[in-house]
């Protein structure tokens, strides 16, 4: 298996346990605002993410408004919403890049609050991948891997192969197409086997083969117990890979849908967003 050789014995062990435990309850998470969350959740041990009334304010703009949410370990959750809805802010919060202005929460048990960011290693695939342009794809991954010093050449080559890139390709990233950059970005997000994978518009610029590869990677990761959150404007893509979909607008979770009840996501989306705008 792709990640079977990653040198993170303890982490793998603990994650597998969480993943297998989570397999049964799949989509136990729910949005507090809309569907309620008991203070004593019996499945709390299996929760990857728990947000309680999280608000994020940038000067005069409120990006997230009292968002409450739980995500089960090993689940795949899609975030959809119009531009400026707060999707990227939510991903940044989960990635520990920002702390909330109000509210609290935890990511794999690591608490965050207005004075504290979440500090759990996550795999983040940003909307606009950023690399060192004159280095090759493999060299860029090596530079990131050197920070945690947990994986070696083999894992980097495996990650690149998994997304359809060649580890021996010496072409600098500046010569990459947008699709290749997306693939490289996905490789950097998954190469260190994160417990939480955050994908922001991952299908941007990917060709049809790339989109299929993306689906496979997301499903593989989730099958291994990794919690995946992906934000996308491509509703069909979200519908295809996600078990659960959160519709966000104006910094609020408008609807928390499981795949079964979603029906046509596009119809639900358009109706809800239109209602919200009114």
């Amino acid at each position: 298996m792709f990640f079977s050789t990653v040198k993170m014995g303890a982490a793998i062990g603990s994650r597998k346990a969480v993943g297998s435990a989570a397999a049964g309850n799949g989509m136990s998470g729910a949005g507090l605002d809309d569907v309620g969350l008991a203070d004593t959740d019996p499945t709390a041990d299996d929760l990857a993410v728990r947000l309680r009334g999280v608000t994020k304010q940038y000067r005069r703009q409120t990006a997230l408004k009292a968002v409450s949410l739980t995500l089960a370990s090993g689940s795949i959750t899609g975030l959809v919403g119009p531009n400026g809805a707060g999707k990227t802010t939510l991903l940044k919060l989960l990635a520990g890049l920002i702390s909330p202005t109000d509210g609290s929460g935890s990511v794999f048990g690591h608490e965050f609050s207005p004075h504290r960011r979440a500090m759990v290693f996550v795999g983040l695939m940003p909307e606009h991948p950023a690399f060192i342009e004159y280095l090759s794809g493999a060299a860029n991954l090596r530079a990131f891997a050197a920070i945690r010093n947990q994986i070696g050449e083999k894992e980097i080559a495996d990650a690149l192969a998994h997304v359809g890139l060649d580890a021996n390709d010496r072409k600098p990233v500046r010569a990459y197409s947008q699709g290749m950059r997306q693939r490289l970005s996905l490789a950097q997000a998954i190469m260190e086997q994160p417990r939480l994978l955050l994908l922001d518009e991952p299908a941007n610029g990917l060709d049809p083969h790339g989109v299929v590869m993306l689906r496979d990677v997301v499903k593989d990761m989730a099958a291994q117990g990794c919690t995946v959150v992906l934000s996308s404007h491509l509703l069909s893509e979200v519908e295809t890979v996600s078990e659960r979909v959160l519709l966000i607008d104006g910094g609020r979770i408008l609807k928390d849908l499981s795949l079964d009840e979603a029906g046509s996501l596009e119809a639900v989306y358009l109706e809800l967003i239109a209602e919200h705008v009114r």
Partner: protein
Amino acid sequence: MVLELLREKPRGRVVPAPGFPLPSTKLLFRLAMFEARRLLARPGAWIAVALVSLYATSALFIERDAVARGSSVDPSAVLGAAVGLQTLWLLVLVLPMAIGGTLADDRASGYLSLQLTRGVPRSLVAVSRLFAAVLTALATTVASVVVVLCVAAAAGPVLFAPVGQAVSFAPELLDTRPLLWVLTVIAIYTVAAASVLGSSMFVGLWFHALASRIMPPVSVVASAFVFVGRLTRFSPFERVSFLQIFDADWAAPIPMLIYWGIAWAVVACVVTVCVSAKEG
């Protein structure tokens, strides 16, 4: 301004999760070396070295010819490599213009976010980049000095001519221990350039990369018009163009090193606090 920022955005208390890299000297070294390599891989760094070295060696030849024609005011003072070395201070201004703005670029592109998701403490990111600035400044200064010394040696007639008391920085040191004099000059230029590069990082937290390249060198030059009279000794511009300030008591190796050392430490503290606050 910094206090206001800290009040608005309290710094996150970092509790490293298992598997996260703990702040350590090894990690700091890895990050600093990586950032220094990135800076030195920029063509701008070596274009700056080439331009400043060209200017410095030109000055060396011009002065040599002036001595040959007998038109120099003090022939004994202007021969040799010291002439070229005294014009290398321009590197302190040119280097940030050439390679400053990396932090602003990385923040804008999202590269910094990818580093931070791997658990690098914000403060360590700042400190590693400050050390990278020192390493880069050292490498470029040494390269420029080597070029000047080589050209001076080839051009002759002497590498280090006897110098006049009136026109040299630390003349006794240059007369008696020229190698130590050169090392002192390198050290001063290095710390000065690292300080200005550090200021570039500070500016880059709020402004576009281009502004972070231009504002610090312009501020250094502008200080010549702000620090006048008794305040001259505090002027970064006067301190960086020190070889021309031969009659000031503060234009001596130790006070110069202390001045720029303090400047770098202040810049480092401010940048570290601001990066931690701004990225929290």
